[in-house]
């Protein structure tokens, strides 16, 4: 079941840099890794934008997004009480039941967005969390050090370790690695895991139109043929991917 609705904006807050958090009411409890197609009502752009669930609690859906172009810029200008179009939850999400053993979560930049809600859902499994940023870090609190091991890496060493997050994780230490972030980061992680026979799940990104699996605009090549990121993903098992 998915919801196609006008929702009133509860919050649309500037977090830092070009990162914002949008909060809307939503009845449906999403799975971690699922996403929503979001569109302002009076924008001069056509297609809704895919944004992952960042957190969900007590009917409040939180979406963390980076202003990276025209559509997200328009969304960031919307005010509390404005109506916004929210279609979702969409996609497969992570299959929590499969996530057992020693788990690492590896996020990069705005790719950390879906990982907070994932973490909350597998907190009892005490995953280690690796987060990489360019310079400014954001939303670290949620992943809080009292909850699990938190390794923060910035390219300039501003906060935490200096370098790339991929240099600070030894995938062999884990049974399962979960990753979301820039393509190049995910590729490195996936390759390392496949080499070491570590189970790996990645949340993929592709331009979308329908977001529900109808237009075939968002397919990726997998070992089992074309798969739709919006419907068959966005979460894929690394063994299916052709990296």
């Amino acid at each position, binding site marked *: *079941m*998915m919801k196609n609705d006008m929702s009133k904006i509860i919050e649309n807050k500037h977090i830092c840099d070009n990162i914002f958090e949008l909060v809307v009411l939503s009845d449906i409890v999403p799975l971690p890794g699922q996403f929503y197609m979001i569109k302002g009502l009076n924008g001069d*752009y056509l297609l809704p934008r895919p944004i992952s669930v960042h957190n969900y609690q007590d009917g409040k859906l939180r979406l963390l997004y980076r202003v990276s172009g025209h559509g997200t810029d328009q969304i960031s200008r919307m005010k509390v009480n404005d109506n916004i179009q929210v*279609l979702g939850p969409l996609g497969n999400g992570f299959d929590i039941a499969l996530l057992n053993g020693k788990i690492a979560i590896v996020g990069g930049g705005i790719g950390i967005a879906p990982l907070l809600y994932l973490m909350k859902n597998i907190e009892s499994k005490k995953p280690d969390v690796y987060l990489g940023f360019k310079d400014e870090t954001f939303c670290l609190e949620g992943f809080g050090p009292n909850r699990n091991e938190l390794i923060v890496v910035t390219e300039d060493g501003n906060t935490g370790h200096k370098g790339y997050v991929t240099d600070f994780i030894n995938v062999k230490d884990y049974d399962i690695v979960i990753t979301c972030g820039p393509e190049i980061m995910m590729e490195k992680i996936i390759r390392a895991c496949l080499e070491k026979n570590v189970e790996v799940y990645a949340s993929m990104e592709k*331009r979308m139109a*329908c977001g529900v*699996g*109808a237009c*075939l605009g968002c*397919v990726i090549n997998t070992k089992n043929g074309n798969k739709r990121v919006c419907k068959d993903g966005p979460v894929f098992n690394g063994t299916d991917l052709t990296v």
Partner: protein
Amino acid sequence: MANLKVDFLGKVFKNPVVAASGTFGFGEEYNDIYDVGLLGGISSKGLTLKSKQGNEGIRLWETPMGLMNSIGLQNPGVESFISREINIMKQYKTNVIANLGGNTLDDYLIGVKLLNDSEVDIIELNISCPNVKEGGMAFGIKADIAYNTVKAVREICRKPLMVKLSPNAESIPEMAAACEEAGADALSLINTINAMAIDIYARKSVFNNYYAGLSGPAVKPIALRMVHQSAKAVKIPVCGMGGISSGVDAIEFIMAGASIIQVGTANFVKADSCLDIIKELDEFLDSQGIRDIKEITGII
């Protein structure tokens, strides 16, 4: 509550709103959002004789109030359609239109033969595909090539035959007339308009195939003109589309001569656009004291 019911090629459409080919899959994804049986009909994803993987590279690109796509007819093939997807479509209580493409005349003919024995209500012959025998120029560009294709298909086709015109045709009125003469039962238009986008930083065309098809509100004024031209050029009914996003848009196409209309890109903009359009059609007719939508079909 005005009467929105339309007879089209001997089929009853409970309203004139049909989901456009390629934008609605085989209906099942949108049926998770609303009851797609409320639509007048659904046109299937474009089918080819053999299954196709479609194009590599970027498949979608947004333009000002428009969408470019280069899906490349990814589809399961006619045989799979007949054994599987048609059953999905048939469970929704609405008209099932099979959109059929092809690169050679034989592709079309074999495809039509297979569909003849299926449960599809209407065949929509998509003549915008590149014609491999004619050097890649689409069947839908030159009226004489279209005429020959449609005539051959007509001879073996036992389903109502709707021919989908390309806006890239050399002359829309001539193309429309040629398809009518060749035996088409109806015309549908427009397919997407050939267009281009360039990634100036990468210094290359966004799409692997250079050009891709433009749809959405941006093309509506052009589509409306072509539908009007076609409706004036032929006596067979016309199914109009291209950028329809609201009841007002739909009424424009109907006044210009479309008996039924299709909605494509608008499904992406808002998943239940078709329902909004049906509602707005009804409201418009009521507000104007029009009791039957057929009263205004082609009045311009």
